[in-house]
């Protein structure tokens, strides 16, 4: 087993155990639900890294036409989408306890829903083309579009409108000054842990695809 896979397991175990057991600061409204930072927020960070890898490889595919880049771009989106759905679910459970409803009309929540829709549309697009080269090219073009939407909805729009999320509009925050050092000690490792876990899944799926390709070639 490679060293980073061991690191992924260790960091995940650490952030799950530490995330539930280590003391957290008591903030109004949030209380114990602040522990969701370790999972909900870190999942979004991991998703952002995966999606960024995806767009870089989409652009590389368009300029090189190498199958390797396409597989990387596609699988990072798949795992990123998986993380996105998990992030949305953890967020919804958290919202039920703090805001009193699973779905609140909030700019970040709505933006996420739309972003995930765009990426699901990407999956539909890929599914509807048979020719692998065409699939790769169209997928790459649409994923560049999708990434621009992601930046728009998750980074730009929440900054020009007010959000209910902690850290926005005067709500107590996970962010800069409300998160103390013990929280950071779990938060950052958890991001790396989730990312490494996602990367592991990506490499596994790419290996699976390569094996399938080989089987098709042999037949």
């Amino acid at each position, binding site marked *: 087993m490679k060293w980073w896979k061991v690191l992924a397991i260790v960091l995940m175990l650490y952030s799950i155990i530490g995330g539930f057991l280590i003391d957290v600061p008591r903030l109004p409204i949030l209380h114990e639900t602040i522990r969701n930072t370790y999972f909900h927020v870190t999942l979004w960070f991991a998703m952002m890294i995966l999606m960024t890898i995806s767009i870089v490889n989409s652009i590389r595919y*368009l300029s090189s036409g190498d199958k390797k880049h396409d597989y990387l771009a596609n699988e990072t989106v798949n795992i990123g989408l998986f993380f996105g759905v998990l992030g949305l679910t953890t967020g919804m459970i958290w919202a039920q306890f703090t805001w009193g409803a699973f779905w609140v009309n909030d700019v970040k929540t709505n933006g996420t829903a*739309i972003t995930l*829709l*765009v990426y699901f*549309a990407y999956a*539909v*697009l890929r599914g*509807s*083309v048979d020719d692998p080269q*065409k699939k790769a*090219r*169209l997928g*790459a*073009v*649409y994923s*560049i*579009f999708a990434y*621009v*939407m992601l930046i*728009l*909805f998750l980074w730009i*729009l929440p900054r020009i409108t007010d959000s209910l999320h902690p850290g926005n509009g005067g709500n107590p925050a996970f962010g800069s000054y409300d998160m103390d050092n013990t929280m950071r000690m779990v938060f950052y490792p958890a991001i790396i842990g989730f990312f490494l876990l996602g990367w592991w899944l990506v490499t596994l799926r790419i290996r699976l695809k390569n094996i399938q390709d080989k089987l098709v070639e042999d037949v």
Partner: protein
Amino acid sequence: MHELKLEYRNKSALGGLFIYAFSTVFVTYLSVSRSPPSDLLSTFIWIAVLFISINAAGKGFLQEQKERMLYYYSLVKPTSFILGKIFYTSLLVGVIAMLVNGIFILLFDSNIEAPIWYAVALLLGGAGFAATITFISAIAMSASGNFTLVSVLSFPVLLPFLVTQVKFSKLCIAGFDSVLALKYAGILILLNLLVWALAYLLFPYLWRD
């Protein structure tokens, strides 16, 4: 220019479009008995414009025959081809938007507080719709030539335009505020630049088929 003539040749399709627009608006009018408040009115208008535009403009690439595409391919650069296509679609969506707006305002007898800004909103929103739908339709054409794909792919991408557009028009119908209007216009211009630039840069990769 050539696109204009091409579409003018199937006048029946254009006529069908007008009837489609009128009946959509009329159905809304009959179902909503009283004059709706400004936010609902602008939502109605822009959702109608969205659906009609996707139906009309989404076919932009699908109805081209393979042979003709080959002919264009030998004739013009891909970038000028997509820009021409988008210009034509903008015109089409502009006509649809004006039509839908006109009928709505006529039927519901509403007043617009800031008509010039309203026209600006209509123009910017229409151009954005057109660019997005044209580009997505190019993707869908090379994917499978399947029309449902156009709506699946373009709805989420059109959402930022739709949301800004609805808020902008609502502002122009009632409770006008020029600072907010400038902000919305700025957002729409940025979104337009973004989509046009993406279409311009990425279309050459869709072209060779």
